[in-house]
């Protein structure tokens, strides 16, 4: 009898797995939320990048709905994302703040922005990942929607483009503005 049960185990395990997979199919696995969501932006203060006067600190994020974008001149995907951020700024959609993450030297970030345009209100230089750690960044590009009270409301991993902006990010921004 025990032997029979033993031989039944594989099909039972398969059954359980099948249930999980069926449920798993209903989910969108691409949403990786951060533990920081719905918590205030941790305090940080980043120096200005070369050529700019003002740095970027957590205090700058109060009073309006903002987008915080982690980028780096070394990051290919950021390059792909960049034109869309430029468009957002040109159309005055919302203020975007940049964290220039892990540059090799102080000049490459500013040069990158000079050549391609700067969509950011303020950019913080973050060679030691202080700001990135504050936001719990896993890679670049990554972006956070921060509400008027300075609370992180949404984390977007990867490139922002027209599709995901219109579908997901912008509706969240609009909802937060109405609050």
């Amino acid at each position, binding site marked *: 009898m025990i*032997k*029979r049960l033993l*031989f*039944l185990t*594989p*099909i039972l395990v*398969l*059954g359980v*797995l*099948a249930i*999980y*997979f*069926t*449920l*798993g*199919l*209903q*989910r969108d*696995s*691409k*949403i*990786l*939320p951060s533990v920081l969501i719905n918590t205030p932006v941790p305090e940080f203060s980043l120096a200005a990048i070369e050529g700019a006067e003002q740095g970027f600190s957590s205090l700058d994020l109060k009073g309006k709905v903002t987008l915080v974008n982690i980028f780096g*001149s*070394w990051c*290919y995907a950021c*390059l*792909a994302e960049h034109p869309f951020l430029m468009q957002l700024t040109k159309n005055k959609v919302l203020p975007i703040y940049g964290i220039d993450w892990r540059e*090799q*030297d102080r*000049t*490459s970030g500013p*040069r*990158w922005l000079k*050549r391609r345009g700067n969509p950011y209100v303020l950019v913080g230089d973050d060679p030691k990942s202080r700001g990135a750690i504050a936001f719990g960044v896993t890679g670049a590009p990554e972006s956070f929607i921060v509400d008027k009270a300075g609370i992180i409301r949404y984390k977007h991993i990867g490139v922002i483009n027209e599709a995901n902006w219109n579908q997901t990010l912008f509706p969240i921004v609009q909802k937060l503005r109405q609050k």
Partner: protein
Amino acid sequence: MISELGHFALIMALGVAAVQAFTGLAGPWRGNENWSAIVAPAALLQAVLVSLSFAALTHAFVTSDFSLAIVANNSHTLKPMLYKVSGVWGNHEGSMLMWALILALYGGAVAFFGGNLRPSLKARVLAVQALIGIGILAFILFTSNPFARLSPAPFDGSGLNPLLQDPGLAFHPPLLYLGYVGLSTTFSFAAAALIEGRIDAAWARWVRPWTLAAWGFLTGGIALGSWWAYYELGWGGWWFWDPVENASFMPWLAATALLHSAIVSEKRDALKAWTVFLAIIAFALSLLGTFLVRSGVLTSVHAFASDPSRGVFILAFLVVTVGAAFALFAWRGPNLTGRGTFDPISREGGLVINNFLLTVAAASVLLGTLYPMFLDVLDLGKVSVGAPYFNTVFIPMMIPAIILMGVAPLMQWKRGDGAKAVARLKFVFMIAAAVGFGFWLFLDRASALASFGMALAAWLLAATLYEFASRVRLFEPGLADTWRRIRHQPRASWGMTLAHGGLAIAVAGMTASSAWRSESIQVMHPGDTVTVSGYEFTLKGAETIQGPNYQALQGRFEVNQGGRLLYTLVPEKRTYLVSRQPTTEAAIQPTFLGDLYAVIGDADGKGGYVTRLYFNPLVPWMWTGALIMVLGAGISLTDRRYRIGAPSKRPARQEAEPEAGAGAKA
């Protein structure tokens, strides 16, 4: 017109598969020999029809027929011919057709080479193979038709992902599919044997070559994929424990276990239920891989066009196929008792322990791969399981497995003498200890684990060579006798020596490249020199060049050592014209001790370039080791016992072969 013929051939193939499945099951059941006789020709016809269909699709890609949606979406007139052809399987529909093609070809091969199979078993194997074929062909025809037309036809195609425009990637899916789908054959053998309720030594012998073929292709496919990641992703890593990589690695672990347990089943008439179970699970893991990659339940860097609706079909297919086999297993399995008695200290004892380790390793990889999904479904949060988990769980299990791989081949079947085998290996042990200690003393005192890894590799290589040497009696007088023995070693035992030795070399490469990589990232101006691991890299210059369908920034590095020019490295950063997507083409110079690896990045606007320079020690050993393993599988496959139509009665002279040789077949 040709495309319509291809579509029609595919529909015909579905019909033939239905006939094949029915006659293959009903024929042996009702004892109707006329029905059974149809099965093999049907399998051959199915193979021909699916081949025609695949040829028609290839024709559409080669001639850039953009009235086919799949060609318009995945090809471009500017693409080099090689990538037009590889575009056939570089997309969902085409890759499913390739899946069906390989399945049908394996079925055809069983029909063609299976002359010495028991007729009832052969019919049932082909019937199961046809049932799988029905599922896949129906999936293609009803949900993923590669021959769907597009109206209006665009003027030109929208290209191929430039990351895919690469020889490594062009050829690694076919190899992997040959491996994945090859396991369908062992699955069919297992299911057929369960239907018959009869598993004997002959069955185990018939299964082995098919396992071996699938295993060889899978090994080659995984190595090629890893090699591609290594040079294309541009930062020198070669294994990421990504779900898609795991999806190919789990069937490999199961197939490796199956390869060895089938030996025990053949030689000792034991472990029958276990072998059948592994044959089912190996294919189940292949299907699971397809499901994970195509359905999008897991996030992966390999963004293959995933689509949940396809996921539903593949899941249903997996559950029905594997569920049916497991149901048969639950019904017939308890009656599969072996006759062989078991001594833990024996060669089969060693094989069983290694089987256990491989299976647990596969299970832990499965758990790590699926864990994020489990948590997500239970609303316990989103996590990603990465390399730290896999390394801590997987590596400790491989250590005893590798130690055992050195000992088990030296032990006798039935009743081995553990103490004697260990005593014979004392020199091997001393070599391994010396290697490990040497690495620790002279190279890296901080990392005892890496030195231990090198010691393990040395242990396995030395033990494998020692086992071979003692098999041909190298240490006994009479060189002529040794030479005669070398020439008369069965191909299968060459296979084992090569596969085990290849793994040893690969383990050395994996350990060294993970532990002792050195890198340097900086902005360089032409004329600047940077030293990495004693190699002086000088940037001579960089220029923009035109490729057939891309533009590239090409850098030139000269590598000197002690004032002597050794190599010139030419890395590129390409931008493809159609998709505007940049890719890195690292320049890699393999040397005996490791790879010199150079990547060129963006210009800084002041005449400097971001460059990344690496020395990756022993990386070529990994690819060499994998190649040797594949070679071992290939040589083993040509063993006369597996040979086409080889009669089960062998000539008397063969029967008189010394038992030591026959016992070592692996």
